[in-house]
């Protein structure tokens, strides 16, 4: 409309200024205007007339907003609020849900464990180096208790940093031969706080499918793009990295600010095998991706001095950007730590949520961890002894009727899975549970089913029985356990 109007206007002007003699600039004379009207062509006048009528209509028509038709009245709101019925806060759990009844351990969960009143040999706690009831560790914890009490009453930033913490951090850094270490007060929170501190929205993380639950929670908290590669399959990882490289070429500006990480475990807790670290390093330098290594199961187990999978493969520890481990397995304390170069680790002191916003590790637990480190440093032979025992158990459990052993031979926490699955997870679990109950407590060997949250795991591992090897198990113990398991398997799985 306006275009027509503006277009017609100049025609109007030019038409009439041509016809009318304009004296002294552009002065309109009313009479001459009226004269112009009479001389205008009919279509022009009609068009102008229509335009003016349209403008008048638009000016006076009622305006309406689109969403007014969707706005609810007060009465409708009241009705909806009346009608709404929420789901119950928690869905009902049946009384005989298998995860509901916990086995009660009276007394310490050490080598000889009392479960549900029966004494058994412990093949289920992650007490690899047997430090759970070591006298020296207990004495140090008691000394610390006498000095510091139990709790720290504050996070690290607000008078929760004790000299014990500083000592433990420097001891861990020395032990692992890295620049710096940082400790957390809970093992699960360690890698779950470390990953989101570095990787943010828009970054890319390549993770192994068999990564443990705490890694998955860390990934979820980071909000980055997660790409899973098949377990221990370096070709699959390389394929994903190549695809990413092509993407980067298409958009170099974005690629310059997108950080990329690979997260793997040293010894996987779900599959008890080892990650191929040298190949990962090759991929790291080829595709410029940083590596985060989770060593909860391999710290204090692999390597000549127990330094984990980097020592096992003879890899330079500075090549790994971050090593994270919990102190709840080999070190037999509570908590976790991350170690690496200062450039990387120092960042967590302000951005690690589990570090900044949570109370620090109780000093007696830190003192216990320091003493455990002392023991590990004084006597590196324990690692060789542990690996020998692992090998012994591994070979002994081969050929169990109906069960297959999953894991590498130097892994201390192995899995026994059903050779042939019955088709449904529930019945598999039931069979394995029967085997466990057959063996412990009646036969005096404590075993446990590996537990998972079935609905939350991304790649749910198959049901299995966990078999944990500790340094305190004698040959007779191992013999007894193996024979019990084989007996149970043949009885239950015939």
């Amino acid at each position, binding site marked *: 409309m306006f275009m027509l109007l503006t277009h017609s206007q100049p025609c109007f002007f030019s038409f009439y200024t041509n016809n009318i003699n304009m004296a002294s600039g552009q002065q309109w004379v009313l009479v001459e205007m009226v004269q112009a009207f009479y001389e205008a062509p009919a279509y022009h006048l009609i068009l102008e007339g229509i335009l003016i009528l349209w403008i008048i209509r638009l000016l006076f028509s009622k305006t309406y907003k689109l969403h007014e038709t969707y706005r609810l009245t007060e009465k409708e709101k009241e009705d909806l609020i009346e009608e709404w019925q929420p789901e119950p806060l928690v869905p009902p759990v049946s009384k005989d849900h298998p995860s509901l009844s916990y086995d009660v351990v009276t007394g310490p969960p050490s080598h000889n464990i009392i479960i549900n009143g029966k004494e058994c040999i412990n093949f289920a706690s992650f007490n690899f180096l047997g430090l759970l009831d070591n006298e020296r560790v207990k004495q140090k914890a008691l000394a610390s208790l006498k000095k510091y009490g139990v709790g720290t009453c504050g996070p690290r930033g607000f008078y929760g940093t004790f000299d014990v913490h500083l000592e433990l951090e420097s001891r861990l850094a020395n032990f692992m031969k890295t620049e710096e270490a940082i400790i957390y007060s809970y093992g699960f929170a360690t890698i779950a706080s470390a990953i989101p501190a570095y990787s943010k929205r828009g970054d890319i993380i390549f993770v192994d499918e068999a990564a443990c639950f705490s890694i998955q929670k860390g990934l979820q908290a980071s909000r980055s793009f997660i790409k899973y590669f098949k377990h221990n399959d370096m070709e699959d990882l390389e394929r994903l990295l190549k695809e990413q490289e092509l993407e980067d070429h298409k958009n170099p500006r974005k690629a310059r600010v997108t950080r990329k990480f690979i997260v793997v475990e040293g010894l996987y807790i779900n599959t008890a095998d080892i990650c191929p670290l040298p190949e990962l390093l090759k991929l790291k330098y080829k595709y410029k991706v940083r590596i985060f290594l989770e060593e909860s199961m391999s710290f204090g187990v692999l390597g000549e001095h127990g330094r984990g999978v980097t020592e096992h493969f003879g890899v330079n520890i500075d090549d790994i950007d971050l090593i994270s481990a919990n102190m709840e397995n080999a070190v037999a304390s509570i908590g976790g730590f991350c170690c690496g170069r200062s450039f990387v680790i120092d960042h967590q002191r302000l951005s690690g949520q589990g570090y900044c916003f949570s109370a620090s*590790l109780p000093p007696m637990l830190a003192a216990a961890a320091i003493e455990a480190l002392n023991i590990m440093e004084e006597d590196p032979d324990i690692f060789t002894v542990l690996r020998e025992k692992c090998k012994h158990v591994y070979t002994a459990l081969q050929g169990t009727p109906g069960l297959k052993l999953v894991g590498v031979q130097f892994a201390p926490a192995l899995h026994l899975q059903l050779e042939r699955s019955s088709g449904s997870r529930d019945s598999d679990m039931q069979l394995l549970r029967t085997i466990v109950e057959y063996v412990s407590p009646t036969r005096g060997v404590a075993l446990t089913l590996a537990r998972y949250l079935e609905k939350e795991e991304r790649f749910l591992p198959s049901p299995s029985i966990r078999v944990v090897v500790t340094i305190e198990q004698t040959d007779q113990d191992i013999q007894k356990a193996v024979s019990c398991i084989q007996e149970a398997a043949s009885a239950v799985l015939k």
Partner: protein
Amino acid sequence: CVLSFRICNVRQLMWASRCIEKWQESFEQAPMYVAVMTYLGFGIVTLFGYLRDFLRAVGLEKCHLAQEREEQKDFVPLYQDFENFYTRNLYMRVRDNWNRPICSLPGPVFDLMERVSDDYNWTFRLTGGTIHNAINMGSYNYLGFAENNADFLKTVADKTRQYGVGVGSTRQEIGNLGIHEELEQLVANFLRVESSMTFGMGFATNSMNIPALVGKGCLILSDELNHTSLILGARLSGALIRVFKHNNMHSLEKMLREAISSGQPRTHRPWKKILIMVEGIYSMEGSLVRLPEIVALKKKYKAYLYLDEAHSIGAVGPTGRGVTELFNVNPSDVDVMMGTFTKSFGAAGGYIAGKKELVDYLRSHSHSAVYATAMSPPVTEQIIRAMKCIMGKDGSTEGERIHKLAENTRYFRARLKEMGFIIYGNDDSPVVPILLYMPGKVVAFAREMLERKIGVVVVGFPATPITEARARFCLSAAHTKAMLNQVLHHMNEVGDHLCLKFSRLKYSSCPNLHDEKDFELGS
């Protein structure tokens, strides 16, 4: 005996009615010039920051920051420059006020390790000296259970000798010890609920259990000032999060009405559950939750309530049962009661308590029960002993420590207000934030108090809004009147010296706030 029982009840009623009638919460605004000076201060420091960065880039100033390895120089940088601007240029200059190491028990007095920096706070060096017997106004030691008295800790020492410190397994596998079950029973008794479950870390209690309770298709209404652990738990759950203004019931009700009537965004399907998340005491503000009003709202709109009593359990209420006792609310009205053992019990860990169905569900579906190590035995024993002491089961008077804490709180707050400082929060909260506003004053205050052998905690941006930097005092039942007087004396001096008395209200402490004393018959 019967008389003392009746006195206890009367005392409780008096306490509760006082709290509801006189809702004494104040958040006084500072004069305008203070805000102006604060922004000016930040502006100047930021300009200097840019100057320093420029000098470092040009090479005139040495860069103290750790650098990336040579071999990885062509990788994508791990940190973006602007992300670290604040850390590099503002925080670094004043970071000697945080992470101060101590070498004694975190009781009412403690020993600080002397720490100096030779290069303007880039690195620290411990001189080996100690600042002995500094007064501790920063640790969360509300009931004074951070103690190392051998008699009191006898049971803890016994358990350490018997069990060791570690557990080595998760609750569902083989880490469920007899004392864990004993503790859970005791916690349920203490809170007067059906059942409870404990976890090894307070932070993780929130981040691992909220995802088990709510999921996609649920709505979480979270208070503006909720703790990071609650926010992380809410984010991990996948539910939609809406934030309502701090302690503002109108905002909450409006949101509830809006949410229920319009349903989920875009699809308009009805919500599966609505969970209101609040805390008992907000640690940065010192304010208490308006529990009776929230319970009324939640009943009206059929929502569920998640109450995080990290700071309030053990610290408020006539017998230390938390905000439910303080406001005389039935504990079964709160659907999920969560709390931590770090603050009032001098240990570590957290709990969730409520109806038996809730706790049974968590036993089978909580992330912590399946994947995280169980609580350490000595820590468990410490909580048991502390709880028995609070409940009066081990021979000590019930409510003795909490009474001392309440006395200390009221006295301290009244005296500070009298002096002219701006204090935030409720009169009954043992967390006392004193507003300092300007970044320079915050740092000067902390350093000055350290010279006078008083350890304080200061917080600034980003934990608080940029113009409201504060010092936060945490009172303890173990603080004696003499210690508090000494602190107040020094506060007075430092307040005058640094011009920190911004309050424009005239306050005179009431002659006698201790009504309960009139009822104390007998010795």
